[in-house]
């Protein structure tokens, strides 16, 4: 793994206006992504985890400029892309692609598989028409489908197969960065592992950088090198995978990991049950956003904890890091 930074996100904010009344006046803001900064290294897989509404998908969309950022910078391959005009951005889109969550919604139902995969290449004027057709067939086989499927329509495929088509579409432009937004969440267990394996294999072969957005910690553990945890639009913790699953420092990360049910009757975890719901991102609490639900919070309601590096590569936004620890018997097994 090389150490060059491929993506740098600096103080990125994405607020959505809430309009009300006859004149659609803006009465407030949903702070979906609220001052987020991090770096992604070339060739790594960074997992972005959090519960629904934490802003992880918005973050992915904003990085790709599918949403316009409210503030902050996104630097991709040394070039700031957050201010580029949409025509100046178009050639750069080739290098950053997305795999979408919904295998049924993400493919145009009225286009044939071949044209769906080919579209990106023709938009960017890559290859000749015959080369593109050849490439499409190659890609289909690469993702484990038959090359003869080019003339079929999306509705003829199952969810897993459609997700493979979505992966082929993203790969067609040989991007450097792939953002996978809940790419396996809607798939059945036995299909999910097939797709995860495929993504791993492709990465090994083409050395993509993945930004893997997911709510499923077990999946993240299998595919990512580093993990970034979000809560209510902010980053609460970033660390290497090994560190985050064995020694999480933020109480929210601890609660999140302990809440995941494990298919092993012998696995016993000291489950941290959080009380209440995630507060609304329209009126986030003062101080640390997690404080109202945090079992160990003290002065946290007043001061907002900054994201600081507590040990090499382990960043936490908490006044009391490590005061809640993950306790489990029959914990990490080597397998």
């Amino acid at each position, binding site marked *: 793994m090389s150490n060059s930074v491929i993506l740098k996100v600096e103080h990125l904010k994405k607020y959505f206006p809430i309009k009300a009344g006859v004149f659609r006046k803006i009465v407030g803001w949903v702070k979906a992504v609220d001052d987020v900064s991090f770096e992604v290294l070339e060739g790594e897989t960074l997992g972005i985890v959090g519960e629904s509404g934490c802003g992880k998908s918005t973050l992915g969309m904003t990085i790709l400029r599918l949403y316009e950022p409210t503030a902050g910078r996104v630097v991709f391959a040394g070039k700031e892309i957050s201010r580029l005009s949409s025509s100046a951005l178009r050639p750069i889109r080739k290098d950053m692609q997305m795999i979408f969550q919904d295998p049924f919604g993400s493919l145009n139902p009225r286009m044939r598989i071949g044209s769906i995969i080919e579209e990106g290449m023709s938009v960017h004027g890559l290859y000749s028409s015959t080369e593109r057709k050849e490439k499409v067939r190659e890609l289909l086989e690469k993702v484990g489908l038959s090359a003869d499927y080019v003339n079929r329509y999306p509705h003829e495929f199952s969810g897993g197969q459609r997700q493979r088509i979505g992966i082929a579409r993203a790969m067609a432009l040989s991007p450097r960065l792939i953002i996978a937004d809940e790419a396996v969440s809607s798939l059945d267990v036995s299909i999910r*592992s097939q797709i995860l394996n495929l993504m*791993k294999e492709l990465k090994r072969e083409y050395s993509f950088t993945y930004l893997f957005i997911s709510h499923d910690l077990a999946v993240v553990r299998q595919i990512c090198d580093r993990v970034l945890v979000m809560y209510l639009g902010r980053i609460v913790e970033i660390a290497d995978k090994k560190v985050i699953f064995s020694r999480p420092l933020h109480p929210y990360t601890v609660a999140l990991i302990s809440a*995941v*049910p*494990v*298919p*092993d*009757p012998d696995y016993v975890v000291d489950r941290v049950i959080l009380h209440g719901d995630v507060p609304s991102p329209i009126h986030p609490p003062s101080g640390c956003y997690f404080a109202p639900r945090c079992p160990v919070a003290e002065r946290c309601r007043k001061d907002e904890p900054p994201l600081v590096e507590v040990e090499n590569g382990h960043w936490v936004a908490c006044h009391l890091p490590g005061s809640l620890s993950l306790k489990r018997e029959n914990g990490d097994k080597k397998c």
Partner: protein
Amino acid sequence: MTQPQHENMLEVKDIKVYFYDDEGRELKAVDGVSFSVRRGETIALVGESGCGKSVTSMALLQLVDSRGKIVGGKVIFEGQDLLLLPEAKMRTVRGKDIAVIFQEPASALNPVYTIGEQIIEAIILHQKLSFRQAREVAREMLRLVGIPEPEKRLNEYPHELSGGMKQRAMIAMALSCRPKLLIADEPTTSLDVTIQAQILELIRELQKKLGMSVILITHDLGIVADMSQRVVVMYAGKVVEEADRTEIFKNPLHPYTIGLLRSIPRLDREQTKLETIPGVVPDPSSFPVGCRFRGRCLYESPTCCEVPPPTLVGNNHLVNCHHWQEVRQGKETARF
């Protein structure tokens, strides 16, 4: 009560639910499913989407959508076959003796009525209570399921509640008539993990408090390990394996169960390569003849064209596979 205390409160025998598509084809969505539920126990019906687990559970209440039909089987609940009951009688069972909570609390609650009105309606329907008494019970139920400020919540509409709170309200409504059996159909699938942990904890607590049995329908084997005492694994409209929880996880004998368990990404360990089950879940219109796992199975042989007989292989451990002995052998040789 003079009624004999059956050990099994519910016995489902060979239930079959077929659907008919536009072309008049018969889709055997549930094809001869049997299991039983003991008093106070939690049984998990587990399988991937389309395996028939939800259809099975709804068929217990004679609730099948218009394209489907219950074509056979028995559902013995407290000594009475529910499938023989006329609709009017059945209505007194639904909601009172057997209650259901659904996956999508948002769509299971009617948006134009307040939470209170909906719970009170359910209570008055089955119990001879005045409105005032029913309201009292409703408030008590909301308190029981851990909804803060129950008095205020009674007057709120579903959209004013968060997803987790809606599911709590659903549970309050389901439990307001103190059912003997609760069918929980993917109760936490639409919820976040930390909220899921709350709801599962709540169901477990209430079950202990009210002494009811639970049929938990889920695709998440983690929840199964966490919640249930017995596990029924379904695949393509049939039961493939049934056993006590520890047995299923420690000593699975059906190739599908084994494949399913191995293909789950695990939170508690790192897997360099996930194991997979080859192929895809077959469509109900093209279920294979004989063993329906045919075509995806590593142990497949010509005998698999015959329907595998249910075999009792150990204490309460039932497996529907021609090759269970080989599977067991294979595991032993792998171990040593």
